[in-house]
């Protein structure tokens, strides 16, 4: 009996030991493609296998009974499959669904270029914006090398897809910048007020932008300021044109920082070396001071405050275009103070908020006098009244206070819903006086502008994403409201390729120069339809985009007499075009280039235009090629930009005796060509232990000395036209940028050796 028991026990034991189950099969994705390297495992056991390149797996398990198979692969949602293990071979064909992931999902790109280091789908890095030849570290100038922006050289602003400069607005951390450029000087384009080094990300929208923004018919530039600096540092800039000094101090716990800087620009030395076509009787001088602090909150959010104060003055004399013996002496002083406070943070339950407050005030004191060749102010008889109107003084002030709140809630991995509101209080005044006609009038208005907006990001799969939004706006100065829908979509058509669509209606208040004279006007309107195809790999980007913009309710000038007009919304227009962008960082070693081409067909009847005409800031064909080459051994880089545009139209509108405008003359300027060069030398490149970071920078714009003509100014009679040309053929810049920082990152290793 005992031997029988032992034998049965032994038999039972060996039977359990030899009861193995073969498990095999395949793992594919839900399109049927085999998944290589997927893991198939028996839960709570060591048994399992990984799939080969055909998606097949096989293994043997000693587990018994009903159990669970865990199937997983990185980037896919794991599944659990019940199995019965009783010795019979198990064959399974399994499918995994791709996880929604920020890295893999499509992004909506229609009408938008993003620049920045952490942005997915960015076409430019923040260093690109600063080092593009011809830009001289001005953000707007760098954006002009992208498709959609026109080459307008005599006026500041972004002229996008047939839109005027004021149809493009700049935002910093969500709030509008009222004066992004220094004050206008006739026919001389001014720089932007902000350095590109203040920002870590830029989104340049050429149309179809999100419901979170409004009041720009053509484009928005969304700038995101940098967070905490890497380490405390002191910076200095030295050049013949500008000197500056600043510091950023990072707290020991690395959770907050503060900084301030000052720079001074004086063109005296530069203008002595490079003569200008205009005669400066008051050398351009700029004083800029700024301060900031940044605090990282406990929940990982950021509070940032930035303030900048600027004072500048200049005076110049240029030839009067009515009389060859006269000069127009133009003088300007400007005071500008800009403040921006933002707080973005996280709440429980997947909520995020973004609060912003901004206050800016800008005061311009402008004067102009017609002077004879001895620089004496002239007064003219009534028969030449138009000359007397060129003697004037204008003091104007623009104040803008803004409050903004946006709340964002995550719904699932990537989908989200957001909503918010803005309130803008603006006060504008203009004191205009002429001596001869005893005019001394103060025009002013204030506006309470309010908006409410909501938007949702809908990600159905990694291959399909949509954004739907709506925006409500109300302005008290014109006493009108509007509701603007926005919609966009992106669909992946192949590996790294996608099609994107955007649609939206955009409204914009008339300009303050119009609102001073009449407030019986409504919003101007533009409707955008955009489609784009993009293929983007790590090293190459190809993009083609087509658009149609319909303008309605544009402002038309209704003349009352020579110097006074009122306005209405009877204007209209359209813009349509095709754009290409190609960037390649790989084909040629260490060589990076991009090519932009824009075709633009646009006409509008607005302001004093007599019929539907192509506006004078639009060119039919515009192209840019930007090249960068970095020489690692020499630690230097060379950048070249070539920009081309076909001629721009010019018009002379003359007011007849019936107070109606007539088109007396029209034509096209010659083509525009500009070849720009810049180089930088960075001795401390890729040396993270360097104490001092130095950049030597030199640039020349319009190297070949091409005589550009942007348009014409006409004499009162219309018989004489003076070409609008840049004040000097070339612009030279040479400067040195130094940064001293304390880097403690290697101390631990060094102390242990």
């Amino acid at each position, binding site marked *: 009996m005992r031997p029988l028991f032992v034998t049965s026990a032994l038999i039972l034991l060996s039977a359990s030991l030899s009861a193995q189950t073969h498990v095999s099969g395949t793992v594919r994705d839900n399109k049927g493609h085999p998944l290589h390297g997927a893991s198939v495992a028996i839960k709570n056991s060591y048994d399992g*296998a990984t799939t*080969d390149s055909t998606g097949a797996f096989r293994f043997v398990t000693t587990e018994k009974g009903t159990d669970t198979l865990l199937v997983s692969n990185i980037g896919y949602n794991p599944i659990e499959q019940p199995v019965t293990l009783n010795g019979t071979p198990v064959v399974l064909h399994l499918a995994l669904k791709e996880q929604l992931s920020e890295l893999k999902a499509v992004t909506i790109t229609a009408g938008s270029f993003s620049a920045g280091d952490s942005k997915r789908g960015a076409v430019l890095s923040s260093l690109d914006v600063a080092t593009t030849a011809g830009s001289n570290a001005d953000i707007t100038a760098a954006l002009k090398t992208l498709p959609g922006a026109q080459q307008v050289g005599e006026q500041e602003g972004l002229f996008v897809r047939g839109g005027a400069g004021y149809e493009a607005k700049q935002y910093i951390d969500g709030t509008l910048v009222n004066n992004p450029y220094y004050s206008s000087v006739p026919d001389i384009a001014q720089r932007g007020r902000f350095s590109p080094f203040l920002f870590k990300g830029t989104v340049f929208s050429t149309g179809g932008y999100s419901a979170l923004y409004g009041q720009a018919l053509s484009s928005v530039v969304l700038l995101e300021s940098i967070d905490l600096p890497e380490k405390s540092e002191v910076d200095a800039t030295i050049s013949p044109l500008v000197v500056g000094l600043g510091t950023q101090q990072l707290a020991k716990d690395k959770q907050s920082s503060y900084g301030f800087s000052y720079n001074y620009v004086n063109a005296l030395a530069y203008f002595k070396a490079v003569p200008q076509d205009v005669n400066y009787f008051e050398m351009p001088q700029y004083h800029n001071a700024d301060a900031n602090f940044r605090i990282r909150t406990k929940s990982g959010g950021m509070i940032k405050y930035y303030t900048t104060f600027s004072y500048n003055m200049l005076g110049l004399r240029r030839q009067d275009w009515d009389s060859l013996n006269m000069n127009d002496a133009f003088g300007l002083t400007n005071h500008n103070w800009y403040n921006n406070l933002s707080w973005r943070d996280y709440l429980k339950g997947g909520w995020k908020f973004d609060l912003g407050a901004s206050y800016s005030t800008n005061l311009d004191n402008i004067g102009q006098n017609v002077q004879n060749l001895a620089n004496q102010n002239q007064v003219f008889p009534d028969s030449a009244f138009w000359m007397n109107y060129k003697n004037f003084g204008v003091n104007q002030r623009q104040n803008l206070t803004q409050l903004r709140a946006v709340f964002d809630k995550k719904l699932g991995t990537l989908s989200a819903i957001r909503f918010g509101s803005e309130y803008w209080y603006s006060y504008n005044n203009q004191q205009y006086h002429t001596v001869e006609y005893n005019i001394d009038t103060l025009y002013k208005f204030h506006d309470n502008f309010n908006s409410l907006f909501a938007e949702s990001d809908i990600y159905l799969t990694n291959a399909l994403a949509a954004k739907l939004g709506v925006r409500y706006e109300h302005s008290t100065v014109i006493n009108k409201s509007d509701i603007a829908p926005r919609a966009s979509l992106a669909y992946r058509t192949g590996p790294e390729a996608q099609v994107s669509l955007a649609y939206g209606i955009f409204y914009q208040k008339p300009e303050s120069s119009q609102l001073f004279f009449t407030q019986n006007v409504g919003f101007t309107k533009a409707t955008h339809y955009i489609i784009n195809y993009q293929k983007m790999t790590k090293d190459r980007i190809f993009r083609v985009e087509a658009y149609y913009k319909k303008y309605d309710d544009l402002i038309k000038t209704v003349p009352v007499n020579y110097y006074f007009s009122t306005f209405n919304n009877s204007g209209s227009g359209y813009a349509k075009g095709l754009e290409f962008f190609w960037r390649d960082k790989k084909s040629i070693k260490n060589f990076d280039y991009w090519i932009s081409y824009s075709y633009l067909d646009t006409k509008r009847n607005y302001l004093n235009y007599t019929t539907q005409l192509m506006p004078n800031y639009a060119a039919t064909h515009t192209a840019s090629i930007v090249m960068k080459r*970095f020489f690692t051994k020499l630690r230097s880089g060379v950048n070249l930009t070539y920009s081309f545009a076909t001629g721009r139209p010019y018009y002379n509108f003359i007011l007849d005796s019936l107070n109606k405008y007539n088109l007396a003359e029209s034509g096209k300027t010659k083509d525009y060509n500009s070849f720009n060069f810049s180089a930088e030398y960075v001795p401390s490149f890729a*040396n*993270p232990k360097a104490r001092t970071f130095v950049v030597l920078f030199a640039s020349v714009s319009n190297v070949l000395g091409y005589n550009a003509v942007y348009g014409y100014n006409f004499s009162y009679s219309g018989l004489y036209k003076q070409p609008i040309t840049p004040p000097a053929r070339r612009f030279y810049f040479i400067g040195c940028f130094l940064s001293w920082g304390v880097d403690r990152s290697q101390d631990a290793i060094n102390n242990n050796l």
Partner: protein
Amino acid sequence: MKKTFVSSALVFSALVSCTLLMGLSTRAQSDKYVAAMQKNLSLFDSTKTIDQYQSLAATFDRIGDAEKTQWLPFYYAALAQTLAGWNPDLKDKDANSRKINAYLAKAEAIEKNSETYAIENMSATQQMLVDPQNRWMTNGKDASEALQKGLALDPNNPRLYYLQGMSMFNTPAQFGGGKDKAKPLFEKSVTLFKAAQPKSLYPNWGQKEAENMLAQCQ
């Protein structure tokens, strides 16, 4: 009566045998763990191809999932995936580093120590090498920080000095690197390896590699 006694005895002995068997099984499970770990650790020497490393990583991952309280299986899964990453035939280093980091996260959820930081360093270094000119500020910095954190936890880990030496060795002299800077680091690494008394199953790789590198610095 004799029959009843015999049947009870049979039942009792059967019960005892079963208990003994079960008891053996419980001890066998931790023996099972040790045996599985030792078997798979010995496979490291013979593993060559990317697929073999991925398979080895998945095997360690299964052990880790089954055991639930051991960080070592997940650590070795991450290490195997890292060794796959050094193979020049592996094209998508970023995707591979995501796999390394996924295994490493499971290890670090149980215990964060100087060995897991060494893997963090290697994973970030592999990503940086994809495009050093543009990634030294991001992945390069992460690699550096991981070593610092590891040293703060265990300043006597020879592998950390080896990795820092490798970074210094591969950085051009004009950017602050080179053989002269790397040599003292490899010397310290070899010294620590010679003095090391690693616990059973704990990582002890790298001595040969450190000695090789030190020879190249002479």
